[in-house]
């Protein structure tokens, strides 16, 4: 029973990180109708932004988190202005290849400037575990969970309760009508890309703290999982994406706990294939490109 509860908790923690990445993909797709394949590498930039701040400036957690968010957000802003906006209205394949190219540039740029190898992350927070009775949680795990849940809460608040969030949903469903009611579609898209990037940056910091290291090529592993989540859930409802991400995290943790981590990734892909076979638009429906 203890193993089950422990793996359940571990699953929620990793699933919540997948959820933040998946929501980033979904947020950008809903307004721009493109898959931003640079998103996982923006996540990685956030991780290194935090690492550099913790190494050379301060190890104060809040400052490091802000550095992670700002570095990822800045790259997101540059991507929107230099790539996504000029390519709006063009073939989606062009944007897809362009974002993929930016992602590769970011990976190799960080590898060349900092290191192509795994780099140790400074100890910004203590690694002491917190005993919760049947289960225990380390402080980095707790931070990871809180950062992810906080990020999801911010996205939910933004999308559901702010005027810009409403405009984001309006652009997602009918961009022309939204523009005809005064919505600056470029501005809404820019806010969506920057918000998705900043939250990915925070999530990356918490992953870096959790595993105690950073790697220029880490984006791919998390990006694929986040991408699977939006394919399985569909991109229409953010709540659906979060639910699938948590379910995927829990499934992976249970497989790791009861079988072997060898099967973990295979099962994620099997889940994707099975769902797309039955529901090609995802479990909760999709906006199409």
């Amino acid at each position, binding site marked *: 029973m203890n193993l089950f509860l422990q793996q359940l908790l571990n699953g929620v923690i990793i699933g919540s990180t997948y959820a933040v990445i998946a929501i980033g993909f979904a947020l950008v797709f809903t307004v721009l109708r493109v898959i931003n394949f640079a998103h996982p590498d923006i996540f990685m930039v956030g991780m290194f932004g935090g690492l550099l701040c913790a190494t050379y400036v301060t190890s104060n957690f809040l400052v490091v988190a802000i550095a992670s968010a700002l570095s990822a957000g800045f790259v997101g802003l540059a991507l929107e202005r230099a790539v996504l906006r000029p390519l709006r209205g063009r073939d989606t394949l062009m944007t897809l290849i362009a974002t993929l190219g930016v992602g590769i540039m970011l990976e190799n740029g960080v590898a060349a400037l900092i290191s192509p190898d795994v780099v140790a992350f400074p100890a910004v927070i203590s690694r002491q575990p917190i005993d919760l009775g049947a289960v225990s949680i380390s402080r980095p795990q707790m931070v990871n969970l809180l950062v992810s849940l906080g990020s999801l809460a911010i996205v939910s608040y933004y999308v559901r309760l702010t*005027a810009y969030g409403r405009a984001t*949903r*309006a652009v997602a469903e009918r961009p022309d009508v939204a*523009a*005809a009611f005064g919505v*600056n579609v470029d501005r809404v898209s820019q806010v969506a890309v920057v918000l998705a990037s900043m939250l990915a940056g925070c999530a990356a910091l918490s992953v870096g703290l959790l595993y105690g290291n950073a790697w220029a090529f880490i984006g791919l592993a998390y990006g694929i999982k986040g991408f699977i989540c939006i394919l399985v859930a569909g991109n229409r409802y953010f709540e659906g994406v979060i639910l699938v991400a948590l379910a995927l995290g829990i499934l992976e943790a249970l497989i790791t706990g009861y079988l072997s981590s060898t099967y973990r990734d295979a099962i994620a892909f099997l889940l994707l294939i099975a769902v797309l076979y039955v529901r090609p638009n995802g479990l909760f429906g999709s906006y199409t490109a």
Partner: protein
Amino acid sequence: MTPLLSVSDIHVAYKAVPALSGVSIELFEGEILVILGANGAGKTTIIKSIVGLTDIQRGGISLRMNGSSHDLRKLKTHEIHRLGVTWVPEGRQLWGTMTVMDNLRMGGFAADPAETVQRIEEMMDWFPRLRERQHQLAGSLSGGEQQMVALARALIARPKLVLMDELSLGLAPLVVAEVFQLVKKVNALGVSVLLVEQNARQALRIATRAYLLEVGCVVESGLAAELATKRSVQDIFLGGHS
């Protein structure tokens, strides 16, 4: 008298297919102008061109607002809305996954938030059914109710000019009569209306002036009452009798 809206010799094509070939129309402040035409005549393209949603190849569109003239071809769609132009699109085009209330709030996206709240209340007085349905998803409403939301949404921001595209499409005859009465009510408040319609009989009854469009060209224009008696209009749109 200077027109509020002036469309001058515009040419629009979708890829290689011409949709408008040298269309010119004028709309004066306070009037209901109707554009009649069959499917594919280019009526919706005129409206989309006014709000900046087509690629105009030639010609110009200007709007006279607050004493100055604005070249709409130089403005983006959201900027045109901010001049006081709103749109009731063909098929309503509500945000179906959003609630009725959120659709109405979006109508006032560019307006002062406090005034939007007040305007939503006014619109709910106009359309009491919307008050009952305010928390319901707009996509789940009946056609008539959706048309009420589309009209209310267009009126939230106190527009000077409302572009209405095929208001009667897909509505029951009783609802159609009600909708046209609403257009008159909107106009009586000083809002100019450009109405694009296939329901010529009803549209000509409420319109000040009318244009008749055929395959992307204006073929007739004049006072609505006069146009209603013209044989060409009667033959095409009024079943051969007025």
